[in-house]
């Protein structure tokens, strides 16, 4: 779960990492006073908001309101900010980068630092980034911070401060279950302070059960995505016209690849995951009908999910559907014979193998009505 900048900065502040003073508003007239020069910043999760005009300086209340009003009208890569952050402008002497992420190969946390702060870390050459794996059994120790400070060439009088921020960032990641925490830029001001200029934090959505404080935060979801989330069904919007329902991520991806071979394109895919609840299958089918694809491809390999469970859910879902969307069904695995009997008269297009199913669905999707 990605967090907006203002929320991420709130977390930094709670963990003792300095952030600029500021406040969030959702309309320009909520800006009542500004003390000195400020920045008005669009609160969107997409990168590149600066280039899109989503970050503007202001020196007075009127300026700030004007900036906020302009920003709230902006379309930033398809997203429109609902809020702006108004915060004290920093007198920048130097911009650094400090971040933590998951190192999948080494199976640990990774601290990253670079003297080239302020730009997308993707565009910084690898040689300019220090990457320090944190051994989970050793944890963060002071030598990590000393390495960071040495690499960044931080002046002596500020070294202790930057080291302190490294330690706190690591604590934050562990405490908050963050899978990504970036301070970019970490600003050294002309008067020698070290302040987080921007912050990106992503909370591990699998850990939300122990962070109920995020329950009230709303994600930027479409109505269908919202519904799928409530139903615990993985939902991905793509740009074709075939609705794919499969169980398991790998099988779903393989189904999309197979469709592609036959010229078909998936529009929406739903991954049932491992379920043995006909209600969930029914809900997925209903959700798919709402997405209104030209054809539905159901590809199930039953293990935990038994085929007769799927058949039951499918039957319940298509009963009473007015618009009949053609359904190509390939159902294989545990109890497939029972499922086949159950679905015999349901008007589905049966397929025996993955390739055949993909071919049939692709043909059906290309048919001109």
């Amino acid at each position, binding site marked *: 779960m990605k967090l907006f900048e203002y929320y991420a900065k709130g977390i930094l502040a709670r963990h003792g990492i300095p952030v600029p003073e500021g406040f969030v508003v959702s309309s320009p007239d909520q800006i009542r006073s500004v003390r000195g020069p400020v920045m008005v910043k669009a609160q969107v999760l997409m990168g590149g908001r600066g280039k899109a005009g989503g970050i503007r300086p202001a020196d007075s209340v009127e300026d700030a309101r004007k900036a906020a009003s302009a920003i709230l009208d902006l379309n930033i890569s398809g997203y429109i900010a609902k809020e702006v952050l108004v915060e004290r402008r920093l007198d920048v002497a130097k911009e650094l980068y400090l971040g933590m992420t998951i190192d999948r*190969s080494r199976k640990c946390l990774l601290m990253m630092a670079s003297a080239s702060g302020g730009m997308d870390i993707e565009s910084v050459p690898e040689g300019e980034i220090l990457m320090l794996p944190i051994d*989970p059994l050793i944890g963060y120790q002071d030598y990590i911070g000393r390495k960071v400070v040495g690499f960044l060439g931080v002046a002596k009088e500020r070294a202790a401060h930057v080291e302190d921020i490294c330690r706190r960032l690591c604590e934050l990641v562990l405490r908050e279950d963050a899978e990504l925490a970036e301070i970019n830029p970490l600003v050294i001001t002309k008067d020698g302070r070290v302040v987080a200029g921007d912050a990106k934090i992503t909370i*591990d959505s699998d850990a939300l059960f122990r962070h109920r404080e995020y329950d009230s935060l709303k994600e930027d979801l479409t109505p269908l995505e919202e519904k799928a989330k409530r139903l615990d069904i993985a939902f*991905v919007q793509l740009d074709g016209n075939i609705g794919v329902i499969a169980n398991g*991520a*790998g*099988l779903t991806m393989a189904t999309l690849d197979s469709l592609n071979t036959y010229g078909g394109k998936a529009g929406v895919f739903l991954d049932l995951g491992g379920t043995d609840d006909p209600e969930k299958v029914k809900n997925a089918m209903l959700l798919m009908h709402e997405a209104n694809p030209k054809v539905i491809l159901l590809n199930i390999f039953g*293990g*935990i999910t038994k085929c007769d469970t799927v058949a039951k859910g499918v039957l319940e879902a298509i009963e009473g559907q007015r618009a009949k969307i053609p359904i190509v069904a390939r159902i294989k695995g545990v109890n497939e014979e029972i499922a086949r009997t159950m679905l015999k008269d349901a008007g589905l297009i049966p397929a025996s193998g993955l390739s055949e199913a993909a071919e049939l669905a692709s043909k059906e999707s290309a048919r001109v009505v």
Partner: protein
Amino acid sequence: MPVIVDEKTKLIVQGITGYQGNYHSKAMREFGTDVVAGVTPGKGGQKVNAIPVFDFVAEAVEATGANTSCIFVPAPACKDAALEAIDAGVKTVVIITEHLPVLDAIHIVAVARGRGVTVIGPNCPGVASPGKAKVGILPTKIFRKGDVGVVSKSGTLTYEIVNAITESRMGQSTCVGIGGDRVSGTSFVEVLALFEKDRQTKRIVLVGEIGGTAEEEAAEYIKKNVSKPMVAYIAGRTAPPGKRMGHAGAIIARGRGTAESKVKALEAAGARVAKLPTEVPTLLEEL
């Protein structure tokens, strides 16, 4: 040389009193696995499918000499369950549980490494060796004893491919589902090393997917250390970048983790790469 499980596997099922634990303890026993105990805190003394249930893993190990555990407990209790198993001296821990927080996975894997314990998963279907044992949820019917070693990040896609191999009158030595999370206890490389040493395994199938660099690392390893012929399939060739495709790990991020990069690396390492899962048996026959 066993690949993770064999006739000597003595299994504990953690979470045996739950629906999945109950169902699969029976299925594993029917496959031939020696399921010796179940563990559910507070339910010690009961029996599930005639398997004795204990409150603690250590008690179960003490009473039965179990050496392997299969974990079905929900994600919030999973770290505790896995660490308890490791602490009780179990040598192999297979974690079926999905949606385990990544920091919990990191912690479990680090502790296991320190204790010399093999962790498979989380979020995996487990391991099956036809004629020997199964630890996990892989459907029994799709397997047939043979010489193909299968290692995969996926669950149902593995079944698809194993089934296709069986239908083509070949069989499996061992099938290992390592899971599709970002951090897994065992990676392709470790399983490939076991297959290379295993006498029963003559050919190897690797099923990967987009995201991360585990397939590239596997390719690097294959080049130097694997002499047995290989077929690979990478799921997600047509997946758009930036979208998480169901598995937490299946995402093309920062231009890394693409199918092309993995296919290229595996082909350079000498593996035949199938374009579709249904091509795997054909390529195996051609080896």
